[in-house]
């Protein structure tokens, strides 16, 4: 049973427009959420995080929104750039542990 789900395996967006990547989770006890970006043949790289006590965190073109009542997390990229084309993973942590549960990823393609 997957506790962290990314239901969209892929997404295409025009350059300059907004990309919205979604993530749903089932465990209301998760206390910290991360987004990672992964290029082919490379390991994932940390992008942005959010604590469960917040509902929004912004870093440049990247904003993460957390809706705890809906157990839903989203990553907004605006404006999208061709270099943003990658696979994006969300991950969630159980409080008091060091284990993160990762989603299956969403492949974003930004079209020039």
């Amino acid at each position: 049973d997957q506790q962290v789900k990314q239901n969209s395996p892929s997404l295409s967006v025009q350059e300059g427009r907004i990309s919205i990547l979604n993530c749903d989770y089932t465990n209301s006890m998760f206390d910290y959420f991360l987004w990672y970006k992964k290029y082919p043949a490379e390991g994932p790289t940390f992008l942005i995080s959010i604590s469960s006590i917040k509902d929004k965190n912004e870093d440049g073109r990247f904003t993460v929104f957390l809706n705890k009542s809906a157990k839903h997390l989203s990553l907004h990229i605006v404006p999208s750039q061709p270099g943003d084309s990658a696979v994006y993973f969300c991950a969630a942590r159980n409080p008091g542990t060091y284990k993160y549960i990762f989603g299956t990823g969403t492949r974003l393609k930004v079209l020039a």
Partner: protein
Amino acid sequence: GAGVSQSPSNKVTEKGKDVELRCDPISGHTALYWYRQRLGQGLEFLIYFQGNSAPDKSGLPSDRFSAERTGESVSTLTIQRTQQEDSAVYLCASSLDRVTNREQFFGPGTRLTVL
């Protein structure tokens, strides 16, 4: 470079053979994780090392899998009697500290193919 490195980058082996994968974490990072990513799936936690504490091996899928870490440096993941279902990308990540730094820095991974 100062990042996490893994070797080999690719490994092709025959079913039944043993393989050893290596991870060099970022210097000073006390926490080290191994993950597995099968095709089309998310990252699957395998094992976690934190300093000199006993490792958390709860994610290892079978007793054919084992891992070691010397202090806060190199780690090796060993798979004995490999099976075709072991084919995956094996990723290593290190973190400064599990409490104060939640960010994990990943290596490029080792792609294992079991024929």
